[in-house]
């Protein structure tokens, strides 16, 4: 497992390589920052919340989302193609029988184009190493107590897909419209460390 990403040695090496590339005319000054800004532009958990609210109110959309998430989110004007290439999105739905939770044990893969930068705990070695072994224990620490009858499915983003959890629609929200429903959805809910 890799350690902390923000080590000063690595940062210094990256700055050095960047300077060399600029010196040799292979990179415009500030180009890396511009590309990163481009990649992050528009990435916020509000996008994930919109997707969830639509899925809660439109069963056809929910089916399309689970079958081919990349195609379905385009219906909302969203896409996973903010980076160098479009990333595959896999949406997993929570039910009474099964709760899903996402991790990247090898590094910190996350649907940045959709949710923005990942929370610090998602990148921590503690979360990455513990949630695959003891998800119920880790979820309990997040305040999520699942009944024994609900099985837990951990998804490890070890290759090229990115994941989004579709939480269960809370009871008593029948009267709410889509924007109000989206307001209920949290970033943790989209990763699976909260119920909504």
């Amino acid at each position, binding site marked *: 497992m890799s350690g902390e990403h923000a080590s000063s040695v690595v940062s210094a090496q990256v700055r050095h390589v960047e300077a060399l590339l600029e010196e040799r005319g292979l990179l415009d000054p500030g180009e890396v920052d511009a590309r990163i800004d481009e990649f992050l532009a528009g990435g916020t958990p509000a996008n994930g919340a919109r997707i969830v609210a639509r899925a809660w109110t439109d069963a056809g959309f929910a089916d399309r989302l689970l079958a081919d998430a990349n195609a379905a989110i385009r219906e909302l004007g969203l896409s996973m193609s903010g980076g160098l290439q479009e990333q595959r999105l*896999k949406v997993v739905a929570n039910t009474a029988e099964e709760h899903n939770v996402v991790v990247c044990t*090898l590094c910190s893969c996350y649907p940045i184009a959709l949710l923005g930068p990942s929370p610090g705990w998602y990148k921590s070695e503690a979360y990455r190493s513990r949630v*695959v072994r*003891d*998800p119920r224990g880790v979820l309990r620490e997040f305040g999520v107590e699942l009944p024994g009858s609900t099985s*837990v499915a951990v998804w*490890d983003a070890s*290759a*090229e897909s990115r994941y989004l959890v579709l939480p269960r629609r809370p009871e008593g929200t029948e009267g709410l419209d889509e924007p109000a429903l989206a307001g209920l959805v949290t970033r943790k809910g989209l990763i699976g460390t909260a119920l909504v």
Partner: protein
Amino acid sequence: MPEWRPGDRVRTRAVDPAGHTRLPRYARGAVGVLVEPAGRHPLADERSRGHDPEPHTVWHVRFRAADLFGAGDHTVTVELWEDYLEEAPA
């Protein structure tokens, strides 16, 4: 490479490669079930060595926690290139 189908039982390779790999250590030499394909991509192990390999199929492979860690009632679904997989012993 065998023609895998969802539901097939597979075993992951138990090798410990010298360089980069996307087969997590905890999932090596373990028996799991193919859930569904996760697209086709060049093998990250080869790319990290400066090669430009053809895309291969990647699978969501589901393991029982008890088979990986000797304990736990959950499942772990790992995304694995077909290169990491072999037929599970009968």
